[in-house]
């Protein structure tokens, strides 16, 4: 009998279109498992996530039969989107994993709530208003540059603004490890404030064309 499958950060999800390794679509599975913390997964390269996930299940008593990016959002780096894996196996094993996933999901949601409270405690009143209204907030670095952090995404979510408040540069930088999303957001904010030069050195930059420019 195989030992416990090391699922530590999965959440239950659904998807309508998944890709089989041979490229065929399928919707047949006993259970979907998905992750919102797989930073290797992007809409451009789901295979990297697939390769990451597969060894966790292969040869166990549940077999992955398909994989893909959740339909809720085509960008797996966005909070709520996910890389999904369909599992096939005996019903009792599926139920066992569902129960395990429920516990993990509960713990993760609690961690996310605590992380959001920590983030909000660090924001000014204006930033909290921005966060509530836009799910993003602005940070003024010591250089005077103004940045906007999209709090709903883990990556590709920090923008340098021009004098008119338009996004002109995307800086992609993230916190290593599968920490709550709000912790990642807070780390980005702290790094911008503490060492903007290092933040910019680490981040990958993408120039943006402001709408109407």
């Amino acid at each position, binding site marked *: 009998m195989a030992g416990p499958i090391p699922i530590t950060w999965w959440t239950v999800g659904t998807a309508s279109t998944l890709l089989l390794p041979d490229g065929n679509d399928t919707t047949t599975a006993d259970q979907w498992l998905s992750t919102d913390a797989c930073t290797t997964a992007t809409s451009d390269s789901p295979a990297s996530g697939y390769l990451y996930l597969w060894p966790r299940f292969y040869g166990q008593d549940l077999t992955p039969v398909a994989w893909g990016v959740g339909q809720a959002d085509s960008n797996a780096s966005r909070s709520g989107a996910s890389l999904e894996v369909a599992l096939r196996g005996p019903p009792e094993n599926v139920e066992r994993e569902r129960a395990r996933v429920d516990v993990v999901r509960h713990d993760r949601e*609690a961690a996310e709530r605590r992380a959001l409270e920590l983030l909000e405690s660090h924001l000014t009143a204006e930033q909290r208003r921005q966060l509530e209204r836009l799910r993003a907030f602005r940070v*003024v670095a010591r250089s005077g540059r103004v940045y906007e952090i999209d709090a709903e995404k883990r990556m*590709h979510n920090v923008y340098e603004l021009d004098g008119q408040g338009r996004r002109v540069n995307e800086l992609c*930088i993230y*916190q290593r490890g*599968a920490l*709550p999303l709000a912790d990642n957001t807070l780390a980005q*904010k702290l790094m911008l*404030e503490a060492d903007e030069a290092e933040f910019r050195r680490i981040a990958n930059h993408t120039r943006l064309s402001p709408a109407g420019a």
Partner: protein
Amino acid sequence: MQMMGRSGHETIEWDADDAESCDRARAVFDKYKADGLLAFRDDGFERSSLMREFEPEAGVIYFSPQMAGG
């Protein structure tokens, strides 16, 4: 000190006037730094700085895993 972790942050408190609690906090700080974590000193809204050594007078210290380019 607030240590960001997978299960949410852990809080470690100390009293700047209590040498024993400062020593305990310093030991934790040194361990986290040795583990490669980033230490941010919170100097008030919109003001943070990176720390290399434990400073008892620091109000709040946040520990975070290293950052990487995506």
